[in-house]
């Protein structure tokens, strides 16, 4: 049974997620968080190996940040949490930019006068 590299990567990621799904039942929640960011990082790595799939700089940088910071959860849960909040904020802002296009760059207009 031979699989394409893309199929192999898909299988690996799904296996890792299933392994984590089982293990998180036995571990404290912050470990579940580590498992999820590890999965995100592995997904970006796998995608970069697949021909025809473009992994943009934003995702590469996100992966780099995960690899640098993920193990802080072992000895600095607070630092880990604030790093992860920052990463999420960057992703959310990026999502807004991607979904709204140019208009996301404009400041939100104040709410129009409306009757109370």
């Amino acid at each position, binding site marked *: 049974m031979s699989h394409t590299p893309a199929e192999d990567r898909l299988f690996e990621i799904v296996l*890792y997620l299933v*392994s984590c799904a*089982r*293990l998180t039942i036995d*571990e404290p929640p912050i*470990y579940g968080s580590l498992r999820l960011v*590890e999965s995100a990082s592995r997904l970006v790595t796998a995608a970069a190996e697949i021909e025809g799939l473009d992994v943009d700089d934003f995702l590469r940088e996100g992966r780099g940040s995960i690899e640098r910071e993920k*193990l802080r959860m072992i000895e600095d849960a607070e630092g880990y949490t604030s790093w992860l909040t920052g990463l999420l904020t960057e992703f959310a802002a990026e999502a807004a930019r991607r979904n709204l296009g140019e208009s996301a760059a404009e400041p939100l207009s104040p709410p129009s006068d409306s009757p109370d």
Partner: protein
Amino acid sequence: MSSTAPPDGSQLGLDVFEAMRKRRMHRMFSEEPVDEADLERLVYAAGRAPLARPGIRHLVVVTDQRLVRTVRQACPGFINNAPALIAVCSDLERAEQEVGIRGREVATRLDSGAAAGYLTLAAPALDLAVCMVTSWTEEAVQAIFGLPAHIRPEVLVAVGKPIPNPPRGMRRFHPIVHQDRFGQPREQPA
């Protein structure tokens, strides 16, 4: 199947306290494979760790890259690129026969912990790097290595050569030390 004599390398040596000071867990390894002779020295070290009774401790030395890759995929805590690993396992039936229920529940854990501890001390003497890994589900590890149901995997010790400038280790974790009675602080001798 088992190593009783020290493998060749009688010249090898590192003061035991120096090895304790140097030892740390590594998660980044060089791509170089580990020599068979060094693996044999590690097997010797793990075999020399205190053992409640013979026949309980099993070591599975894994160098087949297909299996190492499988471990990386199916063991969430194996977040490293080691080219080899040693799975320290216990025979639960044998432990119970020999030492009763405490053999099964307690001796196996101490036994495998001691073996892993010896591995972490032997590694710096061989210029090797290791990481103890326990974050995985037993059944998955049993399936990967074909372990029978009564052989419990206890700890996977990732083994490889260190990279030149590994990221700094964790801050040291220290035990809480008491004198005579719990809660009574122990004064450090002057």
